[in-house]
């Protein structure tokens, strides 16, 4: 049975959307799926789904307050079926979970292989023209609740030097020993008596405190990797699994997160070895806390993975690998393309504050980096200030601060365009934060209209019924120099004929149809054949437009030809080439520079 991902490239299609509300009702469909081998759809309401759209999430490098994706869909009130649900539905659907599956009709697409989108909850319902319109929001809204916020009120005025603290509220939720926060004083205690609402302090208070002041429970999570902490903060308090270890937490089920992706592709790649010290108390909004202390500090954002699980994406990463998804003239809708350069987004001074003192409420260290070239070019701009309570000098804070500042400067120090465009459905699975290749008729840094860059998806909206996707894409880093990816080289493992070879298993992905290639007898010696072109790629079988004149053997390699043998603005220009001595390339651009 084909997966949705394998079908999504078919551009003549009949799409299907299946929606279920509250996890128990009927399955509302546009069409009946081709098959349903497991018999999941017990009750189908066919033809009820009139429209469905995914309204995009926006990622902002400076603002960690990511907007969350919403779904909007319409269900026809056929035979008053939706109206009838009001009888047992005093909340009028709000807060109920929405499940959405996307599939194809007429392509042997079984319902079990449909693509399930992330769960959302209904936040708005309206009725007009015999249809109910629903808006639902991602479950990340559940992060917006108080956590690590155990507190009581001081029962009476207390003098400095007190050895006990008595509250007027219940203290049974406080741990048997720990640390209290009263005003700006942090006081350890060794025991408590719930009945008398009394804490016995390890020492004595150093300041007087007034009746009615908050007595907060303080939880220290020290020497922890920030991504591990994210998982612990989100999953603890009942989410299950190895990260359910803290005394409190958001209690999100571990199965709703792509823990493997977060640990393997985020923690181990971008934050390996980093240690933070978190001091948790009085958090009234778990999402706001994560945005400030984890997402912004680590340049991460919450997104959904291709398997519709919550994961993190790291912004402004330089990944030296060709992106898989390609936006080009074959899938970009021409009237949709808009290129905008916004001068106000430039930052050339970045300050990173850390070593937060919870008692004085002061950040005791700051790292500042400026970019002289950018200041010369654009003038000094207002500094971007990042504050992290959990980064400490003792835990390599200087290097962490410098790493973050360098990344943000790379992204923000130059005037870089934002590109908005709409595409056909074949690239609709590109995720927010994912790097994609944009090759299109747009201005580039060398003054031609052969734009060919790897950019990051910062916004996405999808209309699966029409099959169109709106994207905003932007630069992660921008040097103004030619990029220099390492070009592929492969030798023939099987000679099918003079126009077709097989290369090493898995290597077919590294080549693209339309690329120019030259024939080499070993890694360095070029055969006299003219430059050829790749006509088709099927798995690891490559077929060329013209039969090679030289009799092919398994000793032959295919490689990129010289820079001068490529057409102007060729897609292959983003790979590295040798220039003649120190001379510029034929298009006038200088040789490469190694930058940091």
């Amino acid at each position, binding site marked *: 049975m084909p997966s949705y991902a394998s079908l999504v490239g078919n551009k003549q*299609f009949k799409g299907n959307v299946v929606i279920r509300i509250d996890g128990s009702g009927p399955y509302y469909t*546009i069409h009946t799926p081709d098959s349903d081998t497991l018999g999941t759809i017990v009750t189908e309401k066919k033809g009820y789904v009139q429209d469905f759209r995914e309204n995009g999430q926006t990622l902002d490098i400076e603002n960690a307050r990511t907007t969350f994706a919403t779904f909007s869909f319409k269900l026809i009130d056929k035979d008053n079926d939706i109206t009838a649900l009001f009888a047992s539905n005093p909340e009028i659907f709000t807060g109920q979970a929405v499940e959405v599956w996307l599939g194809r009709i007429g392509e042997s697409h079984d319902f079990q292989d449909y693509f399930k989108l992330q769960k959302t909850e209904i936040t708005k319902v309206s009725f007009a023209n015999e249809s109910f319109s629903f808006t639902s929001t991602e479950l990340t809204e559940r992060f917006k609740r108080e956590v690590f916020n155990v507190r009581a009120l001081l029962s009476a005025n207390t003098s400095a030097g007190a050895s006990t603290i008595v509250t007027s509220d219940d203290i049974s939720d406080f741990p048997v020993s720990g640390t209290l926060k009263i005003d700006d004083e942090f006081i350890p205690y060794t025991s408590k008596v719930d009945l008398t609402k009394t804490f016995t302090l390890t020492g004595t208070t150093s300041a007087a405190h007034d009746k009615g002041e908050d007595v907060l429970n303080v939880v220290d999570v020290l020497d922890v990797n920030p991504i591990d902490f994210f998982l612990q903060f989100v999953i603890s308090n009942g989410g299950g699994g190895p990260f359910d270890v803290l005394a409190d937490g958001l209690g999100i089920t571990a199965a709703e997160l792509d823990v493997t992706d977060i640990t393997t592709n985020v923690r181990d790649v971008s934050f390996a070895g980093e240690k933070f010290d978190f001091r948790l108390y009085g958090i009234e909004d778990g999402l706001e806390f994560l945005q400030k202390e984890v997402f912004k500090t680590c340049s991460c954002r919450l997104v959904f993975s291709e398997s519709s699980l919550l994961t993190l994406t790291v912004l402004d990463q330089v990944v030296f690998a060709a992106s898989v998804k390609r936006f080009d003239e*074959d*899938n*970009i809708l021409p009237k949709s393309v808009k290129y905008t350069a916004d001068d106000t987004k430039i930052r050339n001074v970045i300050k990173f504050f850390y070593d937060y003192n919870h008692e004085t409420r002061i950040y005791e260290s700051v790292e500042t980096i400026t970019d002289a070239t950018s200041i010369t070019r654009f003038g000094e701009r207002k500094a971007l200030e990042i504050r992290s309570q959990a980064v400490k000098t003792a835990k390599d804070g200087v290097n962490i601060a410098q790493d973050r500042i360098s990344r943000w400067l790379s992204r923000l120090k130059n005037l870089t365009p934002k590109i908005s465009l709409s595409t*056909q459905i074949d690239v609709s699975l590109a995720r927010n934060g994912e790097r994609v290749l944009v090759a299109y008729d747009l201005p580039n840094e060398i003054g031609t209209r052969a734009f060919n860059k790897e950019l990051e998806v910062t916004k996405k909206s999808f209309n699966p019924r029409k*099959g*169109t996707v709106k994207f905003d894409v932007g630069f992660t880093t921008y040097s103004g120099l030619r990029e220099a990816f390492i070009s592929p080289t492969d030798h023939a493992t099987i000679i099918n004929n003079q126009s077709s070879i097989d290369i090493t298993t898995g290597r077919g992905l590294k080549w693209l149809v339309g690329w120019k290639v030259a024939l080499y007898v070993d890694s360095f010696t070029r055969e006299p054949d003219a430059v050829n072109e790749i006509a088709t790629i099927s798995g690891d079988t490559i077929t060329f437009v013209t039969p090679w004149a030289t009799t092919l053997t398994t000793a032959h390699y295919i490689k990129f030809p010289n820079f001068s043998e490529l057409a102007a603005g060729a897609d292959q220009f983003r790979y590295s080439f040798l220039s003649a001595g120190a001379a510029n390339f034929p298009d006038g651009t200088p040789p490469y520079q190694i930058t940091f």
Partner: protein
Amino acid sequence: MANFIPKIIYTPSGGGPTTIAFEFPPSGDPLSEEIKSVGAEAISASGVEQFSEFYQREILSIKFKNLSKTLLDELRTFFTTHAAKGLPFDYYPSEDEAAFEVYRLDRKQIKIKRTSPDAGDFRYAAEIKIRRVL
């Protein structure tokens, strides 16, 4: 053998099934089908065509000539009490055969013309377009 004299059976609100039995086959092509795919087209910059098909629709254009006043009134009642609201009805292309499909009136209109005098009244011509999703 099909006689191509059509009939319509519909069930008006609060009533039982009602039949409009025509007297003659439609004028010209008895069905005059139009099959249409309804969907969204998106063409890329290089001309790669994408088409998302929503559904296929069949439209029949049926022209009647020489309708009696009685039959025309039945057709008017069918329109005003039922078809104008977008409600479905069974259309039999041949009243002597059991085959029928469920249609709705396309564009919610019936065109009527007077063709000739007939015993103090007229004979009428009417054109209806009906449609169904395939």
